[in-house]
């Protein structure tokens, strides 16, 4: 039994949401709203951090200095995005380090797309163009999310992601217009990333378990299926323009809905990867755990240095 007081507060809270008034950290909010946001924002942060790994893999092998500088800047941005998001989650009372440990223990999730390997240089193109492209489609509506700190972090993230997508498209288009071998490399990579990119929008609306309440609370503003459809509609013409073929025999323009019909996603594969059985799940988690362990002495040294500096200041 909820007491009257809570029901009244919940009504007021929903009225604020309905009036598009942002919720700020110290405002009253339902426990479930807080929990949902902490889960979503920290998963999002983990995704940014784990997302550095597939691309970090190619920094030393970038084909020229320009590409290397760009890739470095992009990977650094992803680290920054992770940090904006961890600090947004902390405004809700989430413990940053505990949440990172939850990820390392396999309790907290991150985006499954990063459990796919980056096998060729063309994958750097596809990750930027398709993976960041799909992420942008997901993130643009989050700029209007009801929770202030999350929405503000998303504004920064979206601004920075647009460079990511363009650099990925540039790599893809350069390869697609290159030698026959380069074009084949681009197509092979496109074939591997297309379906996982579509899975990034999550389960279908009919099966998505978190959607209804998140929509009511304006944490989520557009449904998974709608976002997926938008992504297909904008990406197919981009692929066609640079001469790549969509690996989907069922893809065709539907005049009536003014959008593309596309084939059925392999949800079995999606579930397997979410459950930890994707090609790189273990490798990614191992890399993150190792990074934390190997960085420990740096964090300890910084703390010791800060204490020393403080003591010196006190003495002078």
């Amino acid at each position, binding site marked *: 039994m909820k007491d009257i007081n809570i029901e009244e507060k919940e009504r007021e809270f929903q009225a604020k949401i309905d009036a598009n008034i942002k919720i700020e950290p110290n405002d009253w909010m339902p426990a479930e709203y807080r929990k949902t946001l902490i889960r979503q924002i920290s998963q999002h942060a983990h995704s940014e951090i784990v997302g550095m790994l597939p691309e970090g893999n190619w920094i030393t092998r970038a084909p020229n200095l320009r590409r290397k500088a760009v890739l470095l800047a992009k990977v650094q941005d992803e680290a920054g995005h992770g940090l904006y998001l961890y600090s947004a989650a902390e405004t809700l009372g989430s413990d940053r380090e*505990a949440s990172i440990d939850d990820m390392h223990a396999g309790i907290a999730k991150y985006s499954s797309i990063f459990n796919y390997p980056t096998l060729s240089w063309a994958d750097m193109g596809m990750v930027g163009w398709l993976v960041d492209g799909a992420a942008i489609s997901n993130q643009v509506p989050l700029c209007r999310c009801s929770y202030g700190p999350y929405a503000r972090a998303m504004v920064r993230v979206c601004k920075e992601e647009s460079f990511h997508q363009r650099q990925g498209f540039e790599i893809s288009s350069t390869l697609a217009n290159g030698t026959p071998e380069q074009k084949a490399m681009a197509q092979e990579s496109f074939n591997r990333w297309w379906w996982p990119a579509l899975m990034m929008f999550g389960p279908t609306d009919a099966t998505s378990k978190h959607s209804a309440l998140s929509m009511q609370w304006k944490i989520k503003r557009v449904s998974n299926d709608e976002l997926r459809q938008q992504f297909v509609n904008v990406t197919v013409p981009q692929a066609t323009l640079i001469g790549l073929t969509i690996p989907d025999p069922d893809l065709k323009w539907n005049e009536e809905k003014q959008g593309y019909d596309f084939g059925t996603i392999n949800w079995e594969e999606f579930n397997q990867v979410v459950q930890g059985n994707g090609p790189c799940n273990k490798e990614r988690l191992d890399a993150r755990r190792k990074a934390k362990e190997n960085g420990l002495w740096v964090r300890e040294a910084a703390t010791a240095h800060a204490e020393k500096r403080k003591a010196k200041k006190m003495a002078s």
Partner: protein
Amino acid sequence: MSSNEWPLWEVFIRSKQGLSHKHVGSLRAADAENAINNARDVYTRRSEGISIWVVESKLVAASDPKEADSLFDPADTKIYRHPTFYDVPDGIMHM
């Protein structure tokens, strides 16, 4: 492990001379100097600022949202503090 975590700092950035510092977010760092260096990397990768302030989050005192009504409502009734409250005859210029 969590007890060893660095303190949280609020970060304020002045985007250019003539504008005030504006809150942009927070980060963790061992001390103030470390916080400024981290803020440089996290919040000014695209020339967003020319000056950084950091304040340890626990030192920020904030008004309670529950008291917002009693704090801010009194201003609502004092519409005579705005120039639009006053009647000015047609034809009066530069006022």
